[in-house]
């Protein structure tokens, strides 16, 4: 393995894990936040299904099943997955990879090492 590869990757994993698990932590501390997240995820799932199936009875049935499975039964799995999707989908992964780990690590993160 390349020298100096492991510590930044561990740091990157720790940062990603922190961002992924932060909503779960907040939901554990504040129960209202959990219900807020569940409402938000329900809207996300419903709009995803409606975009594909259009407005109709099937949309309500399928989105109901998906909301029950992903939002209520698998909340602890869906929330980190959605946060990871947000990080990657909005392009925040570039900031984390090149910016956060420190000046010495990234080429884009500042002055090059002498």
């Amino acid at each position, binding site marked *: 393995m*390349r020298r*100096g*590869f492991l510590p*930044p*990757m561990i740091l990157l994993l720790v940062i990603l894990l922190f961002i992924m698990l932060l909503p779960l932590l907040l939901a554990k501390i504040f129960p209202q936040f959990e219900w807020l997240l569940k409402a938000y995820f329900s809207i996300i799932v419903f709009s*995803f*299904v409606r975009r*594909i*199936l259009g407005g109709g009875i099937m949309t309500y049935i*399928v989105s109901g*099943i*998906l909301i029950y*499975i*992903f939002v209520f*039964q*698998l909340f602890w*799995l869906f929330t980190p997955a959605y946060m990871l*999707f947000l990080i*990657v*989908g909005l*392009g925040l*992964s*570039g900031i984390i*990879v*090149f910016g956060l*780990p420190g000046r*010495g*690590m*990234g*080429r*884009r*993160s500042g*002055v*090059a*090492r002498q």
Partner: protein
Amino acid sequence: MDLFTILASLNPLDYILKPVTNIMDTINLVILGFKIVILLFIVQFVRGRFGGGPIVTILILVLGYVMLFSNLAPIFTTAMFIYLFIIFGFSMLVMDLVIAKPWAGGGGEEEGGHTTGKEYSERLAKTRAVQRRF
């Protein structure tokens, strides 16, 4: 109540197997959810290509059966999972890590300089667009 009935009611295997069965239940639930999502993607794909109608519905059902329940299901679901990873942008993260090598440090320009996955794919798209003109 005799000893055997008490032991049978305790059922020690339950205490051992319950966490395992719980995990298996969760995995089955995840698989069910993903199968529904994949079915939605199939519906979107077929409707986008062929519009609506009864034949399209039959096509959706056939494709859904082949891709989710037949012997070929593991191949198709794996391919679909990789496809989902790509369209959600995980490839950009992998390309950032593999091409730009942020752990290498040093600010060297010899390996392509400041290149991220996004810039690389944009450059690739521009090159292809130029090639298409000729």
